[in-house]
């Protein structure tokens, strides 16, 4: 299919949210994984996954972008409008996109990071991507507790398989992006203050277990970054989920300045602070240099003692 609008867009973070400086390439849309919180269900996209073949338009956009922007490093997210590893066809088109990016990156002396974000373990069975000049692939694996995956991400890979897939990505020389997004407050033990606190403590324990599992298999020299991002819902999504009686329509959610429903500030800050503390205990203090908050406000970064940092500034290669 031909894409009729632009391929490359600056990521739209929302009003007041810290701009990480990432671009999105919409080479495909829709996803069959069926995650309950996914914005794609509410976007005007085709029902079935579609791949856009008119890469000559993308080439032109790349050329213009590299000529216009003075920065040397670029970060493209290839998992925003679809899952990057949804099918073998997705990987094949990504390989073709990579060829074009590499060509222009070399010509204009740029360094490009391509994040392939996934909730699958398809890297274990799909053919691998060829290495290219001036181009670094990042395997952005979304990680959540198994109970959350079972309840809200029905057609995706299990946590164990996702962790297994990190090993494979390392073997294939990908950089690794650990994406703890979205962080969902689940299970919820009740509606009182004490029950909410207990629910949060339980979530932190669940994530600590994931950190320990990753610690055993991760080659830290290949780690690009670690991101945390709590669940965000558009007004439309929140209304829909509430009517559907989904447990994602949590009661302590506020309409934040970006017009998205988010867990209230004390909850978000507590979760981020505790997870960062746990990572430091397991991986050492230097891990802080690899952590960023996805789609959060600068005052939340500050509350978590994280310096604001562009996504292109995470690794020195």
């Amino acid at each position, binding site marked *: 299919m031909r894409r009729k609008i632009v391929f490359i867009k600056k990521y739209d973070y929302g009003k007041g949210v810290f701009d990480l400086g990432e671009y999105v390439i919409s080479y495909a849309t829709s996803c069959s994984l069926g995650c309950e919180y996914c914005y794609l269900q509410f976007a005007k996209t085709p029902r079935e996954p579609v791949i856009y073949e008119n890469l000559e338009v993308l080439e032109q956009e790349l050329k213009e972008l590299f000529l216009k922007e003075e920065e040397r490093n670029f970060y493209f997210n290839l998992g925003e409008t679809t899952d990057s590893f949804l099918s073998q066809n997705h990987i094949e088109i990504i390989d073709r996109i990579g060829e074009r990016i590499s060509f222009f990156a070399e010509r204009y002396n740029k360094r490009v990071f391509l994040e392939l974000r996934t909730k699958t373990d398809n890297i274990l069975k799909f053919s691998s991507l060829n290495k290219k000049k001036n181009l670094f692939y990042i395997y952005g694996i979304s990680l959540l507790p198994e109970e959350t995956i079972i309840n809200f991400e029905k057609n995706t890979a299990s946590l164990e398989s996702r962790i297994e897939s990190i090993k494979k990505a390392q073997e294939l020389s990908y950089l690794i992006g650990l994406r703890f997004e979205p962080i969902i407050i689940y299970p919820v033990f*009740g*509606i009182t203050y004490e029950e909410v606190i207990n629910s949060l403590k339980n979530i932190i324990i669940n994530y600590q277990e994931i950190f320990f599992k990753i610690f055993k298999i991760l080659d830290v020299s290949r780690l690009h970054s670690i991101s945390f991002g709590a669940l965000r819902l558009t007004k439309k999504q929140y209304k829909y989920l509430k009517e559907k*009686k989904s447990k994602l329509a949590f009661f302590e959610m*506020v*309409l934040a300045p970006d017009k998205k429903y988010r867990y*209230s*500030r*004390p909850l978000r800050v507590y979760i981020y602070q505790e997870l960062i503390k746990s990572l430091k205990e397991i991986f050492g203090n230097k891990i802080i240099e690899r952590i960023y908050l996805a789609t959060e*406000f600068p*005052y939340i970064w500050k509350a978590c003692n994280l310096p604001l940092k562009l996504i292109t500034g995470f690794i020195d290669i």
Partner: protein
Amino acid sequence: MIHLTFSQKRFIKETIEVLSIFYPEIESLIKEKLAAIKKLDKNRFRKGEIFFSFIFSLRYPILSRKLAILKNYKIPQDLEFDEDNFPFREEIKNIINQL
């Protein structure tokens, strides 16, 4: 009788909808509380305030506690703001950034 504004009534309705997802008995709990408030020896506006405050604390168990502590400060009620822009930064930052 108790007095509630239109937006308060809408908020209460939505709160029952959302909380019933996690606690199916919420409607009867709220009805019991409402009956108790109606019996209080207060005017209907005060009764409305007490009832709404009860609902708000159910809907926002954490946030409502924070706002109670911060009631003397003029700050956005959703706590979504940069404390550095307020003169009383040091006094509030630990309250808004902790459980």
